[in-house]
């Protein structure tokens, strides 16, 4: 636990002291919301759904895209290699980065919510907002594991490009930009197999005050297990490639 806290404090300080790195990442989803989500401003229900979609977009954006690219860049530094020689497991370091990314992701979610309430009047209660943040925290887990996979399998030069190639289609296919009901049938079918769709389903059900869909919970659990395995393989592959 002591090592986790040590790594967490270092990771958080590193990020906080690089506002040029994290501010755009955190603000980008709320900026996108102010461009596109605000078109539903005069309908509190539509506004709430759009806000929920962009919250998922925000958490995945930070925990997969930024976190993954960040790992790819950091693991090639001399400092990271030296850190591996410190006594203790590698996992506190990785967990600390994951928690840091999730916290920054939640800040991004908060900024989407703030912009949504500033520019529109989403029809959500305080409890629903809390539940929505809870859903985002859950979504952060598989998204971070995807980020770890990317960070350890891609090089620092290719990570951002690959993250774009994966994240943007996932956002679209998951119905985070265009509601699933308005997606073409074939896209909607594909959408069922994406993690972002099921993250979205959880968020939309919170807005609808409906009970959480079991199939989406199972899907999220399955994606978490899958990305857990790919993350583990990524770490092992990277270790073997660089230190084998």
């Amino acid at each position, binding site marked *: 636990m002591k090592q986790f806290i040590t790594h967490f404090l270092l990771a958080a300080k590193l990020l906080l002291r690089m506002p040029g790195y994290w501010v755009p990442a955190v603000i980008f989803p709320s900026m996108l919301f102010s461009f596109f989500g605000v078109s539903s401003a005069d309908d509190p229900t539509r506004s709430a759904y759009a806000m929920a979609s962009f919250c998922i977009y925000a958490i995945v954006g930070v925990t997969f895209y930024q976190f993954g690219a960040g790992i790819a860049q950091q693991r090639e530094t001399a400092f990271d*290699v030296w850190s591996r*020689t410190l006594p203790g497991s590698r996992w506190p370091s990785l967990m600390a980065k994951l928690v840091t990314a999730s916290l920054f992701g939640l800040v991004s979610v908060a900024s989407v919510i703030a912009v949504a309430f500033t520019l529109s009047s989403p029809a959500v209660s305080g409890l629903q907002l809390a539940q929505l943040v809870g859903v985002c925290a859950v979504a952060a887990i598989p998204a971070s594991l995807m980020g770890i996979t990317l960070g350890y399998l891609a090089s620092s030069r290719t990570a951002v490009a690959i993250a774009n190639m994966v994240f943007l289609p996932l956002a679209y296919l998951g119905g985070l930009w265009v509601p699933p009901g308005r997606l073409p049938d074939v896209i909607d079918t594909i959408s069922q197999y994406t993690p972002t769709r099921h993250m979205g389903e959880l968020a939309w059900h919170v807005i609808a005050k409906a009970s959480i869909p079991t199939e989406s919970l199972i899907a999220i659990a399955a994606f978490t297990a899958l990305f857990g395995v790919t993350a583990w393989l990524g770490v092992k592959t990277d270790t073997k490639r660089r*230190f084998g």
Partner: protein
Amino acid sequence: METIVNLDRISKRFGKRTVLNDISFTVARGEAVALLGPNGAGKSTTLSILQGLRDAASGKATVFGVAAGSRKAMARIGITPQDADFPQQVTPRELISFASAHFSQPDHVDNLISAFGLEKLIDRRTSGFSGGERRRIALALAFAGRPELVFLDEPTTGLDTGSQAMFNDYVRMFTANGGTLILTSHNLHEVETVCERIVMIDGGRIVADGPISEIRDAVGGKRIRFHLNGANGFSDERFKAADGYWSGIVNDVEPTLCRLLNDNPSITQLTVENLPLDEAITLHNATTKH
């Protein structure tokens, strides 16, 4: 003397290239050993096996009697980062605190500040630090956990004379108190100042291993240099003329000097000096190969 490091018939290949070929050596408590060799000789691979970053393909590497790289071993080891390149957003104090948190009985940060002259740097972010300042932080990080064995990679590169002296004193005190040191450096003056023994690796094999004095003695001693007015007729195949001086390396110093002075009364500016370590090593290796 307690064995701290034991490499027993270690081999390592990268693809088809053999990087380490059956190397063995031990390091005892309190020794200061320099691991030397040209680039690509296998030094870094040897160190990375001892530091738990790589596994050997064959052979056995132990540190403090347990497998190299095990947590038990790493808890007693200090290592300088290979490149003194730290995140620019943090201060030396934060870096030392980060390193210390991994050890059960770390040194107090104030001791490290004074030992490595970090007073003016300790609370500044590392961006903009000079190479020497970064190197001092790297050294402080290596000693932060109060290690019993320290690996130092080019420790004094970029250090000014005062910092080098400070480092030398600290390392002498460290080994005098039972600390063990393994150092890699291309600066042989530094090696001579800090270490009493060298292990020379070339082509993945150990080509020399022993106290520096023994390696010098094996090569045969001293360089004699002199000026000779009217050198016509002087002939000794061990001596060569360059820039107006005759110079040669000899084993039998006293008989050679007697003969030279008897036969050549016009000799002036005669000097007898120890061989620089690099020349001694080169000669030693040449002798060994033949």
